[in-house]
């Protein structure tokens, strides 16, 4: 029997109401369901407006809070239009609408990026293994793709199924992007609902992409003890030919690693990476090394250690050719998203390509299986000629001093530094041969190079910082290779303690490296949370940054804490695609612990997560459009998020008024006023102290039992006292009854509550829900 989507929607209510089962093979948009057809939720494959009712529930509580970056709109030729002082543009758009529109646009860019990335991965994997290759993630993972199940209402069994999920996403994405055209949407809430839809799609395509590469390249399938791999600039052996891969797409790296293994060159050649490609390469082979997160990109390129630079897609410095030329490294572009104006050499033989690149310094190879040999052989050849000059790529100390003496102390480097670091002052000291300040910048700077392009005297500031930094600091750390999804068994163990509040929270560090004060702060945040037995998970550049701190015994957090999804566990999920396993874990809790059916049941599941699962995301250095899509994806699932100070330039947060919320209590069968938890859906913190305290606060949920709440309150209060030397100023909002007061702090809190005139709540919801 073949039922089209329309027919299915038609019969859904009937099936639900009469508990009918239809036997046989049912195919929905080409998906074969061989088991009994049991539609469980109302929204399989939701269209743009299908989940609007859920979004509006969220937005009604967490209002969009806009901070325009520009007074104008310049997207069409009616304009530029001045939208300041309450004015409207020629199309009738006003300032708030324009912000909402731009946020949607950013989310679409981010989602498109992940979708295209996943599409490319799937095509590569299908070419290798075939469309019917089964998706099997080991015996400990039965719910193989919780996001796909919930959103699409189907199980994915083969790689071909994944392709169809992508088709759905690509179609939806087209609708969403079109809504940003002039004269399309006229309501802020509808723009936001679409942005949330884009965020959800982003989550979906990330899951598809990550599963494709896990299956296709035999990456860890949720194993707890993935190998520990080396991380840091100093882990790379300069005395060998070095291949550096930058970007997010693992495919070229796999060919490089394969070729090396085939020729037995693992000892002879170093393969390392920056950004997510590095994380994926280490999931593919433990011999690959990680230079660092994105923040180390320009520094490492400038150091000249890399003989061959292979770029794929996303977050790569677009002036890579110019930078590589300075050090004599050769560049291989491998992705249609980043061709860099280079001639396509794909049709040539590998040896011909090598010759061309040797002559021209760079080339584009879109046929990835040629990249393996070309990169490796090029590295061996180029290394010979570059060997002697590797040490000379950066200026020496005497030269740095001489350069510093050319500085006119205009101070513009400080002004263009995104974090207003004291660049000028450190150069002024370097004039006298004092380099400590420059060395300190090495630890905090993310090498964007804006100071350099501003400098009147054309001082190579990044190179100077890198050289001095390398002499003063050794960046040599460890990180556990990305493990991918969380196992069902782990969820079974922690589901109850998370939902009841015995585990104070699950904190997911995501996002890029636009940190206000260097990578180390992220590690220190994670450390504080791990000591307090939170579950800490991380993905993307954040997971690398967490590794960039050592205790006095030289141990990183990955050495100190287990990789299991349990209280006090530190999990590297993998690259930014792997952020999907955060929402994935939350969904699995709903399914495994609460027996909530997933298929087509988005709103129910999200409602459950929002009210019960104490998970919080932290995107401390969120920079890219992908990061805003990831964040918005978390938000639609009801997972609150904290961003760093730079990320308010995304223009929009979702903030509540901080006063009592309303929910419906399914048990008591009535609407109820409750404590405002979680207080915001996406908010920002100015510094890491505030971020830590906000994490503890946003882990609270209306459904916490008293024991759990008192534990969460304990951490909120003690963190506040540790970092601000005072009680949290809004504590009374989160203590519902005396039972929520932690025993250890009883006297203090009781006194505080008395001062505030606090009164216990008369009723607490047993089964809080927004869906009423």
């Amino acid at each position, binding site marked *: 029997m073949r039922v089209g989507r329309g027919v299915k929607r038609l019969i859904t209510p009937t099936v639900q109401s009469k508990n009918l089962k239809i036997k046989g093979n049912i195919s929905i948009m080409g998906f074969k369901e061989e088991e009994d057809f049991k539609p469980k939720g109302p929204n399989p494959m939701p269209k743009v407006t299908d989940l609007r009712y859920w979004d509006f529930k969220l937005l009604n509580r967490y209002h969009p809070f*806009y901070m325009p970056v520009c*007074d104008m709109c310049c997207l069409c030729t009616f304009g530029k239009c001045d939208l300041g002082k309450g004015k409207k543009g020629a199309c009738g758009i006003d300032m708030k609408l324009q912000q909402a529109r731009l946020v949607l646009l950013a989310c679409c860019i981010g989602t498109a990026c992940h979708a295209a990335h996943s599409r490319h991965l799937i095509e590569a994997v299908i070419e290798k293994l075939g469309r019917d290759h089964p998706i099997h993630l080991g015996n400990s993972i039965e719910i193989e793709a919780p996001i796909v199940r919930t959103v699409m209402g189907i199980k994915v069994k083969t790689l071909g199924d994944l392709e169809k999920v992508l088709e759905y996403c690509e179609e939806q994405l087209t609708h969403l992007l079109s809504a940003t055209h002039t004269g399309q949407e006229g309501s802020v809430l509808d723009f936001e609902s679409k942005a949330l839809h884009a965020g959800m799609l982003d989550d979906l395509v990330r899951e598809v992409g990550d599963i494709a590469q896990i299956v296709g390249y035999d990456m860890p399938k949720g194993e707890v003890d993935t190998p520990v791999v080396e991380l840091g600039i100093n882990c790379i052996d300069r005395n060998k030919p070095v291949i550096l891969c930058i970007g997010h797409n693992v495919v070229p790296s796999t060919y490089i690693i394969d070729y090396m293994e085939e020729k037995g060159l693992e000892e002879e050649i170093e393969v390392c990476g920056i950004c997510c490609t590095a994380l994926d390469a280490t999931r593919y082979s433990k011999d690959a090394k990680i230079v660092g997160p994105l923040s180390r990109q320009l520094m490492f390129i400038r150091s000249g250690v890399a003989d061959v630079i292979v770029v794929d897609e996303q977050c790569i410095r677009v002036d890579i050719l110019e930078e590589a030329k300075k050090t004599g490294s050769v560049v291989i572009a491998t992705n249609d998203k980043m061709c860099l104006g280079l001639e396509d050499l794909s049709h040539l033989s590998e040896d011909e390509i090598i010759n061309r690149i040797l002559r021209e310094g760079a080339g584009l190879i879109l046929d990835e299986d040629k990249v393996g040999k070309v990169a490796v052989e090029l590295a061996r050849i180029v290394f010979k000629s570059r060997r002697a000059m590797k040490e000379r790529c950066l200026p020496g100390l005497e030269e740095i001093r001489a350069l510093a003496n050319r500085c006119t102390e205009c101070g513009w480097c400080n002004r263009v530094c995104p974090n207003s670091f004291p660049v000028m002052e450190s150069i002024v000291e370097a004039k006298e041969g004092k380099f400590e300040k420059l060395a300190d910048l090495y630890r905090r700077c993310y090498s964007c190079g804006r100071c350099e392009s501003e400098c009147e005297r054309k001082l190579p500031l990044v190179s100077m910082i890198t050289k001095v930094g390398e002499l003063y600091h050794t960046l040599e750390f460890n990180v556990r290779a990305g493990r991918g999804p969380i196992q069902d068994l782990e969820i079974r163990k922690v589901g109850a303690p998370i939902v009841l509040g015995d585990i104070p929270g699950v904190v997911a560090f995501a996002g890029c490296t636009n940190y206000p004060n260097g990578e180390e702060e992220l590690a220190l945040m994670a450390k504080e949370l791990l000591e307090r037995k939170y579950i800490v998970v991380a993905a993307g550049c954040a997971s690398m940054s967490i590794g960039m701190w050592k205790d006095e015994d030289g141990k990183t957090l990955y050495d100190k804490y287990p990789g299991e999804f349990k209280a006090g566990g530190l999990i590297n999920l993998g690259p930014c695609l792997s952020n999907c396993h955060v929402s994935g874990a939350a969904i699995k809790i709903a399914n495994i612990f609460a027996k909530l059916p997933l298929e087509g049941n988005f709103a129910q599941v999200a409602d459950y997560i929002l009210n019960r699962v104490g998970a919080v995301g932290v995107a401390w250095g969120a920079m890219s459009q992908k990061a805003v899509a990831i964040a918005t994806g978390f938000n639609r699932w009801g997972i609150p998020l904290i961003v760093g100070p730079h990320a308010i330039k995304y223009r929009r947060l979702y903030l509540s008024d901080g006063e009592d919320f309303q929910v419906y209590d399914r048990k008591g069968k009535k609407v109820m006023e409750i404590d405002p938890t979680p207080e915001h859906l996406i908010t920002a913190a100015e510094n890491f102290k505030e971020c830590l305290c906000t994490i503890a606060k946003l882990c609270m949920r209306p459904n916490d039992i008293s024991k759990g709440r008192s534990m969460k309150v304990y951490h909120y209060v003690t963190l506040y006292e540790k970092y601000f030397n005072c009680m949290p100023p809004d504590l009374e909002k989160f203590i519902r009854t005396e039972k929520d007061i932690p025993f250890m702090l009883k006297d203090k809190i009781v006194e505080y509550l008395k001062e505030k005139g606090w009164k216990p709540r008369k009723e607490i919801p047993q089964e809080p829900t927004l869906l009423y």
Partner: protein
Amino acid sequence: MLGRNIPYQPTAGTNLYHAEVVSTKIAVNMVKRSRRPLLVIGEYSGEAVKYLEDLKIEKVYTPREMNLLALIKRVPREGYDLVMFIGITYYYLNQGLTYLKHFSDVITLTLDGKYVPNAHYSFPNMEENEHLEAIKRFRMLLDNL
């Protein structure tokens, strides 16, 4: 010497509407004329904070007492007509202020030694000691009222 009314971070402006530069005297006068002023003190005020701490103006310390953006969201509802800021991360404050600039009638005044374009009124760019003198003077003039 910096241009006195060029954003300290040169890209911090929003193209059309930028803060009017004010001197301490005019700032004091604004405080005096305000029905209900609020002073928001950040963590990076340095020595200047000494001269502001015991002022008889409602004060909020951010982030200790309140998140900056939660505060910005709240200010229009609470009936403040003048909000002053000092010692908050430059780009963070500047970006957060656009909410009040575009979506409220609240007048904002920044007392940092760096010109903040997205306030309504801002001190000009100043050297460190010059700024401290300005704050001392601000304090003295307020006391003399």
